[in-house]
């Protein structure tokens, strides 16, 4: 079991003919993900690696190949449009890897998705990987392992670091999910935690936050009220100076809010241990998890 994906996940890759899109599509397919179609306007009728049909529109990919999920690698200028196209064509899950999507574009996208009941992951995220089931995005398959731990994070490589440590400690994962570092994202911590809490295969989970916004605080309140499964957290950016964007568009301490200290306090108040160092996450999870 996993969250958001299953054996019936059939993927169309938007931007499949681009350099990154092509490379990561190969990686997804190598992992066993059902990539049933690609979409690049003007390339309809071609085949990706002689196997996967490419269409001009997502609607054709859905109609002809039964795609129900989209993974997007198109450049920032077209990313918001690509998300809306996938939603309008009937994809119920859209994963947008693209970094650098203008924020006002995402403001327009959100109500469009809500009206159509579509789940978005990202943008500016590594996507998700459900070991043994499917890989949607760019998380490296070599570091994951099937098992009972759920992981949700706003980061990319920091996620890999923690997954690597979990796997090395023999703790496999149900789903590793990177929700993205932008101020406006589809799936947030709360959505992921609700899903992990409801997933019978997920016995414990890890939440990796960072400075900026108050998503971690909201997740903490939800966990305190509703979650019995063991949870450990980590917050990146304690040493970040205020007002400076730390790489991710959303990672900025503004007006004295969104600091690591505030987030840690909220998590601790909710009874959630916050690891001081990334290497403390696994030992802390083991210490509170009575298997």
């Amino acid at each position, binding site marked *: 079991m996993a969250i958001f994906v299953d054996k019936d996940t059939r993927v169309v890759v938007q931007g499949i003919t681009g350099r990154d899109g092509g*490379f*990561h599509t190969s*990686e997804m397919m190598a992992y066993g993900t059902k990539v049933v179609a690609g979409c690049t306007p003007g390339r309809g009728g071609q085949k990706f690696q002689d196997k996967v049909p490419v269409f001009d529109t997502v609607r054709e990919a859905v109609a002809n190949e039964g795609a129900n999920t989209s993974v997007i690698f198109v450049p*920032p*200028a077209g990313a918001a449009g690509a998300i809306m196209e996938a939603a309008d064509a009937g994809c119920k899950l859209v994963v947008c890897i693209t970094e*650098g*999507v*203008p*924020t*006002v*574009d*995402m*403001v*327009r996208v*959100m*109500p469009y998705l809500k009206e159509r009941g579509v789940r978005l992951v990202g943008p500016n995220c590594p996507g998700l990987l459900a070991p043994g089931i499917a890989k949607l995005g*760019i*998380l*490296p398959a*070599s*570091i994951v392992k099937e098992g009972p731990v759920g992981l949700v*994070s*706003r*980061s*990319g*490589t*920091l*996620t*890999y*670091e923690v997954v*690597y440590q979990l796997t090395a400690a023999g703790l496999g994962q149900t789903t590793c999910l990177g929700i993205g*570092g*932008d*101020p*406006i994202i589809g799936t947030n911590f709360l959505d992921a935690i609700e899903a992990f809490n409801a997933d019978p295969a997920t016995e414990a989970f890890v939440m*990796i936050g*960072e*400075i900026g*916004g*108050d*998503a971690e605080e909201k997740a903490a309140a939800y966990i305190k009220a509703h979650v019995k499964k063991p949870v450990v957290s980590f917050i*990146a*950016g*304690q*040493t*970040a*100076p205020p007002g*400076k*964007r*730390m*790489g*991710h*568009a*959303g*990672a900025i301490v503004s*007006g004295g809010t969104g600091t690591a200290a505030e987030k840690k306090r909220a998590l601790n108040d909710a009874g959630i241990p916050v690891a*001081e*160092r*990334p*290497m403390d996450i696994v030992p802390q999870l083991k210490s509170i998890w009575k298997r």
Partner: protein
Amino acid sequence: MNIHEYQAKEIFARHGLPVPPGEVATTVGEAVALAGKFGLPVMVKSQVLTGGRGKAGGVKFCKTIDDVKENASKILGMDIKGHTVRKVLVTPALDIASEFYVGMLIDRTSQRVLLMCSAEGGMEIEQVAKDKPEAILKLPIDPRFGLLDHEALELGLKMCPGEVKKARQLATAMQKLYAAFLAADASLAEINPFIFTPDGIGHAIDGKVSFDDNAMYRHADYEALRDLEAEDPSERQAREANLSFVKLEGNVGCLVNGAGLAMATMDLVKYYGGQPANFLDIGGSSNPEKVVNALKIILQDKAVKVILFNIFGGITRCDDVANGIIKATEMMTIDVPIVVRLTGTNEAEGRALLAKTKLHPAETMDEAVQKAIALAG
């Protein structure tokens, strides 16, 4: 990206907001000439990319030409929170009967542009939010319909009860500010204060705009608005080299792939008693040129006593990264020690390559950070 008050006001004026005339001076002589042009009294206002200009003495009311001379010479060259004043805005001083705050920003919670307004104008809105949160009216704007006439008018009337003429002017200002916000791809736009003169006419006498860095590609004209003198030279070079970089005060130079891991690395340096010299995300590439650019930027800072690479090889293989680092370090002379931590795909091969060099290898983040701090002395 942040811009100056005078630049924000130019954007406001283009969208029909009532901005008083004003021009920028870089010398006392120019300021005096502008005061003559606009007529006394005038305001002389420092143009720096930080708040608290008034408190620092960087905004002055001038009744006479002698006042202009005295204040312009004091303000030009003044240091405000580490920013040197190089320009002043000279603008007619208006008689203020009442003042208001009207601002907009991207709100993560509602995932909309959030309109905030308050009859407590002229103060820093963060302070009002702290002391008197009920004085701030908020409305998340539905992107499908924009800011509707009745929504804006209702807010105007809450701020000016019983004064429909003023409420209408505030409402119009809100709608024009929203148009400006969208057209400019702003992440923040505020008029503070929006004032009424005793004749009941509204004026946007101060303002602030920040642009969304993600949208810079569709505003080629914004590059001309960038104040290169106000930017840290190393941050400017990093921006031009397409690297995400923030300069800090320590001596451990950090090169990390990924923003989250870069932040976590800085935090770990601090945890072990060291001080990071910077935040730098070199991205997923193993391109030696990118590494060279990053090293050049970091090594300009003479405080840097050690370089710390923390790379998690996911899709990018560790042996590729190792080769990139080795090539880059061969392309330049580096006289500080370099610690390299490589983990992930092909880590054994990557480490074997490093073993043949003078670089200090490390297996874990903790080991790498502790080694780097020890080498920094």
